[in-house]
């Protein structure tokens, strides 16, 4: 869905992104991870066609340089902070961006309700809180039901509560089969939303790992080994994926990588889905690596 091939972007003599190559398939969710100045935002800006670069980027098969408009049609983008006319009404903004996406939208009510902003359509953008503005940006990004979501440190300006709500909203949207590419500094965001993590350092891709390995790399997290009857394994996989986990099947059940502070979360998800667990085991990442090495 997104093909980034040998992309280099320089600012003067400094390479902000240096020969980066990443392939992101349909339904994949990829986090860009790295410190400040690692090149996460620059890479996202290249994908959006905002910056010129060497190499090539295709979105849905469209070259972002030659067919930028077509490529961006497939992308819903949420920035770190919504920068738009502050005096504009919320509904007016939604209708304006809908028109740019080729949609004729008479009312913004349903769109705003879908991101938890019902009844806010008469307000001006400047009257919204930071969290509400991000929800508005998400509502605008979701117009036209784009298959790709691109997010640039979207929770950076939110408080803890707002962050949790927003990530949960994104998790729901990501679970609908959308492709996601996002930059983040927060481990819990990466473990909740990403299936794979791209490590960037000084503009270079240093590794591409799954979230389980990512947590191991950070010396954090565990893997839950859940024993389940065969008939409920597939529904359990679907439920857990929809909640932002990345489970995989093994012989007698599922292996679910979880951050240390969320070990109970998969049990809650399965209980809400009325799926009974026969047995479970918590394996630390260090143990897991030893087991994998032994195998």
């Amino acid at each position, binding site marked *: 869905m997104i093909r980034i091939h040998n992309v280099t972007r320089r600012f003067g003599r400094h390479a902000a992104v240096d020969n980066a190559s990443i392939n992101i398939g349909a339904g994949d969710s990829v986090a860009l991870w790295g410190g400040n100045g690692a090149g996460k935002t620059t890479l996202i*800006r290249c994908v959006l066609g905002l910056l010129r670069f060497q190499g090539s980027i295709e979105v849905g098969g469209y070259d972002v340089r030659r067919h930028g*408009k077509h490529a*961006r049609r497939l992308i819903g983008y949420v920035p770190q902070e919504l920068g738009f006319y502050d*005096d504009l009404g919320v509904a007016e903004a939604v209708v304006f961006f809908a028109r*740019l*996406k080729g949609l004729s939208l008479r009312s913004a009510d349903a769109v705003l309700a879908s991101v938890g902003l019902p009844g806010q359509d008469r307000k001006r953008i400047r009257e919204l809180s930071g969290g509400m503005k991000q929800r508005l940006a998400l509502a605008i990004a979701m117009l036209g039901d784009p*298959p790709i979501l691109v997010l640039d440190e979207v929770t950076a300006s939110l408080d803890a509560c707002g962050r949790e709500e927003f990530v949960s909203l994104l998790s729901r949207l990501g679970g609908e*089969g959308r492709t996601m590419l996002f930059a983040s500094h927060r481990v819990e965001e990466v473990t909740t939303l990403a299936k794979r993590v791209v490590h960037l350092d000084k503009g270079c891709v240093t590794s591409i790992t799954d979230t389980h390995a990512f947590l191991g790399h950070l010396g954090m997290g565990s893997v839950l080994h859940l024993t389940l009857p065969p008939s409920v394994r597939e529904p359990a996989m679907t439920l857990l994926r929809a909640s932002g986990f990345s489970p995989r099947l093994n012989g007698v059940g599922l292996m679910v990588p979880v951050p240390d502070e969320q070990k109970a979360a998969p049990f809650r998800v399965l209980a809400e889905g009325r799926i009974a667990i026969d047995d479970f085991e918590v394996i630390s990442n260090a143990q897991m690596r030893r087991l994998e090495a032994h195998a």
Partner: protein
Amino acid sequence: MTALPASIRLPSAPASVLSNTAAIALRELREAVRSRWFMLYTLAFAALGLGISYVSAVGAGGAGLSGFGRTTAGLINLVLLVVPLMALTAGAGSIAGDRERGMLSYLLCQPVSRAEVLLGKFIGLAAALLACLCLGLGACAAVMVWKGQATQPASFLWLAALSFALALTMLSVGMLISVLARKASVAVGTAIFVWLTLVFVTDLGLMAGAMALKLRIEELFGLSLINPLQVFKMWSLHSGDATLDVLGPAGLYAVEEHGPALHAIFGGCMAAWVITPLAAAAAIFARRSPL
């Protein structure tokens, strides 16, 4: 081009150039009409225009001169000062202001092309300037009708049309400045400098150049065509009651040498002043980072 998986529902084709340009133009027009600069310029333009119209109308009553023609002549100087300032600053603030506030990059992350954004902003601002001119000149016309001096409406309408053409040329220059400047304050400062240059320095420069370099009359006329404000002035006088004789030998030369072709010459100059800066702005905007 690789095919997209059938399981993912693709949105329909991108909106057309026309639709996107119209949406951005409408947005820009609404934003301009709500802004303080639009209110201030409109009020100032209308107030000064009303003053000129009233004085002209009163004077016309005494001297028996035709109202609209006399007012038109008075308004030419007002338009020469106010309209370029208005259009230059509006254009200069557009792209640079949006860039500074982060709005430009957000807009360009949507399925729109840079040409659509630039053209949309140009059309929106042009419509706002047209509204401003209509309100200002409309108020003047109302005074003339009220005073019973509406004897030459055609010359007044022609002045309005030329004022709009002048606004377009200056808006185009303003947008070029806006695309080049990193900050809105720099863009607006540059626009004011350009305005001063066009309004005062060019006039004085032409006079000084003609004397110091002993320019031939055709060279003087040619040089005056470089400044869109001079073109506006000559075209307005040529079309109104007055003749280009009032501009001296250069005016006489223009009438004698080019005669009926003068309209085409002036029109061509104005069109070039609209198209060239806007095309340059589009070319630079297409290559420059919006950040």
